[in-house]
């Protein structure tokens, strides 16, 4: 599979289809796997593929430091590819100008990350190339199975849930690693950076941390694809996945919507239906 990947990328660069390939790689053999930007055909041997390829490379399609390289090819796992669909719907990328190299994936991390257990996109979709074959079958998860972790948490009494978040969010230092790794966080000026006047406190107090995480989770409602990079990136080990699962569950249960899965479906925020339920409104 690695050979096929390298050959594909070599060809794309050699014939000028793209000026750069965003992939996973090792700049030198002793390095860990990192995002690499291959611009020369002879460098494709740096490309790597294994279960340590965590990063969601779609983020780089929005970074000017990478866009400046020219026309791009991007390597994506199934979960990452969903982000491409969301960005396209939000007019942030021109899909026709990007070459998408899908990498069939059996999961990442040792032990496997939580997201991999309910993955149903082992083979990336809507890709220009699909490299490799996934050995793991797509989980035919029911809605209940997909949100089992969250439901277990919701079974606790509200005071316990609040106490949990007070403990976890007290460790947040407002480094914004969660925001920076997220492909869907692309605002040129984030609401937390607004300071004339201040909207969300930048302070790493419990109040500021609650305000930030509530805001970010809600701004991702119906947009987050569950790549869980934010959870992995957090230097304080906060389980952001649980917050994002909340909004994903609300989107699926109420609107039968899973972000980045169906190119035909309208995004849920920004749209409405006259049939939206309102039994909670008096």
């Amino acid at each position, binding site marked *: 599979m690695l050979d096929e990947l390298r050959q594909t990328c070599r060809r794309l660069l050699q014939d000028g289809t793209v000026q750069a390939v965003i992939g996973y790689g090792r700049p030198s053999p002793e390095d860990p796997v*990192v995002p*690499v930007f291959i611009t020369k055909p002879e460098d494709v041997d740096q490309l790597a593929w294994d279960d340590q390829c965590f990063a969601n490379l779609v983020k780089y399609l929005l970074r000017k*430091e990478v866009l400046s390289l020219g026309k791009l090819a991007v390597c994506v796992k199934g979960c990452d590819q969903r982000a491409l669909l969301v960005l396209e719907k939000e007019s942030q990328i021109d899909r026709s100008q990007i070459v998408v190299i899908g990498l069939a994936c059996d999961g990442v991390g*040792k032990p496997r*990350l939580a997201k991999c257990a309910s993955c149903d996109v082992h083979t990336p979709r809507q890709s220009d190339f699909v490299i490799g074959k996934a050995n793991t079958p797509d989980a035919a998860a029911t809605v209940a199975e997909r949100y089992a972790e969250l439901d277990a948490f919701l079974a606790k009494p509200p005071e316990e849930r609040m106490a949990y978040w007070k403990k976890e969010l007290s460790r947040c230092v407002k480094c914004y690693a969660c925001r*920076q*790794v997220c492909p869907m966080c692309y605002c040129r000026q984030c609401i937390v950076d607004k300071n004339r006047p201040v909207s969300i406190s930048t302070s790493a107090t419990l109040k500021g941390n609650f305000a930030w995480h509530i805001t970010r989770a809600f701004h991702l409602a119906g947009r987050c694809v569950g790549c869980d990079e934010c959870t992995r990136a957090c*230097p304080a080990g906060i*389980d952001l996945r649980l917050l994002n699962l909340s909004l994903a569950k609300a989107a699926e249960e109420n609107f039968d919507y899973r972000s980045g899965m169906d190119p035909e479906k309208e995004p849920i925020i920004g749209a409405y239906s006259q049939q939206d339920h309102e039994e909670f409104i008096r």
Partner: protein
Amino acid sequence: MSELLDKTDLNRLVDAWLSEGRRVAGPQCVNAKDSRGQADRIQYAWLTKAEELRLDGFIRPTNSIKEFVFPRHEKLYGYQFKGKRLELTPAELPTTEQVVIGARPCDAAALKILDAVFNWDVKDEFYNRRRELTTVVTLACKEHDDFCFCTSVGSGPCDERGSDVLLIPIDGERYEVRCLTEKGKKLLAGATTASSEEATAPQGPPVRFNLDALGEFLAGGYDRPEWPEITRRCLGCGACAYTCPTCHCFDIVDEGSASGGARVRNWDACQFTMFTAHASGHNPRSDQSQRQRQRIHHKFQIYPDKFGELLCTGCGNCSRNCPVDMGVLPVLKTIAAKK
């Protein structure tokens, strides 16, 4: 001749310090796994009892001890609008003594560096008060991982800088105790037993790059064309700066409502886009490569030129916490290899 302390007595000391009304901070397991999802995540945090303290089974905590002398959020003073008047209330400086137990040498050495910055042109009373109240009991490192590079920047597993007491493990249960300052002697008075046994000096990580070659590259000019390529994968978060023992940039903001509020100081990071954003809209470091370049220059050229030592102790937190495995070490290795 040396002084020894065993683990049980150390834990008893920690409980004693707590019951005497001191605040004690040390490495603890927080309810999470590390970023590779394997081992427990260990962070420095305030302890409520000695049982929570973890002294071994990990390389180093994922954060640093700077937050105990330089908190991530600090109130400078309060303000209230009273009609046409503005009433200011200075913040109360802490008065409680605190002990940091189980600091790593790379964390403690950073305190000396921070002392210089916070007493350079203005004597920062907030920092100085906390610093005075703090006694640092450092634990020398028995092991290292691929991210550690203390020996490449003039430090090492037994570095005494910044520590009031250095504990060197003899075996799993006992430590050789070196009281390096009056504060340290006072804290551990009577707690140790004399012995003829001495700890063997632990071996640090191999030197990972040539500091002189690095200096040459940085002195060779600011506009090196290599920067964009080396720094392209950086996403501009603050994980490196906030977990770094020596990074000390801060932002001062007013937080409040129409009736009043407080002027506060929060950590800031040079990798954020807004860090150098001007009110006019111009941003002299608008590109991530410019921001990364500045970070390396600041740590390895600008700060040393001004204060005589590197703004880095080789702890490796930046690389361990970086979502894309960057941090300073990969950058330093690359540029020190260039001629």
